């Protein structure tokens, strides 16, 4: 693990309307097998990807939002939401899915995966990454 790289996936787009959100999630799930240090960031309309209670029945497009709850099982547990993007859309953390992971080192204690951070904090985080993939 010492030579693991820090991968950051930046999700910028609404979940439906374009395919970026879904195909980004596909990369994250495949990438999880590579034992890298993975983080996800949700900014701009990307914050809508994690909205609770998505129902796509009327638009006839696959609802892939339940897949996000599996991320914890893939050891993807650093999920950053940009505070300004949430606020600009009148959203709070309560509007989003509650994503958790189980900490092996603490007797599988359930912990929150989502952290709300400011754009300034996010910029610092981006600066520490080795690989930044933008979707």
């Amino acid at each position, binding site marked *: 693990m010492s030579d693991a*790289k820090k*991968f950051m996936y930046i999700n910028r787009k609404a979940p439906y309307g374009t*395919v*970026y959100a879904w*195909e980004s999630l*596909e*990369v994250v799930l*495949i*990438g999880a*097998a*590579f034992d*890298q240090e993975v983080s996800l960031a949700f900014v701009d309309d990307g914050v809508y990807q994690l909205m609770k209670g998505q129902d796509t029945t009327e638009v006839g497009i696959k609802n892939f939002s339940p897949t996000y709850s599996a991320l914890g099982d893939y050891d993807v547990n650093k999920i950053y939401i940009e505070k300004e993007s949430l606020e600009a859309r009148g959203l709070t953390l309560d509007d989003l899915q509650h994503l958790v992971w189980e900490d092996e080192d603490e007797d599988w204690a359930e912990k929150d995966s989502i952290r709300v951070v400011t754009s300034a904090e996010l910029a610092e985080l981006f600066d520490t990454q*080795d*690989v*930044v*993939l*933008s*979707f």
Partner: protein
Amino acid sequence: MKFSIQVSEGPYNHEASVTAINFVKAAVEAGHEIFRVFFYHDGVNNGTRYTTPPQDDINIQKTWSELAEAHNIDLVVCVAAAQRRGIVDEGEQQRNKKDGNNIAPGFRISGLGQLIEAGIEADRLVVFGD
């Protein structure tokens, strides 16, 4: 420096693919190495040899193929994205029982793991997209 490239848009709707071509050319001319170019989302549409743009327009697919041959650059089309969009090589043709294939010279179809590996192996991964 060793670069990997991700191209996320198709050849003509967006400028991303041409910008990526310009970047790759400049990097190679400056003595850098291109580890891999990975085509994802509609970017897989850069890899069909059936592209026939007007003669006074740039042939983006052909430019990629020529770059690949001239500099031995690995052009990889994502298999999952390709299957959705009808980009087919001989292997995919047989596997999915299609009546033909359309992959362009110098391109190959492979999995998303190739993108992750491209990020791991390169000094920089540069994404060209919307």
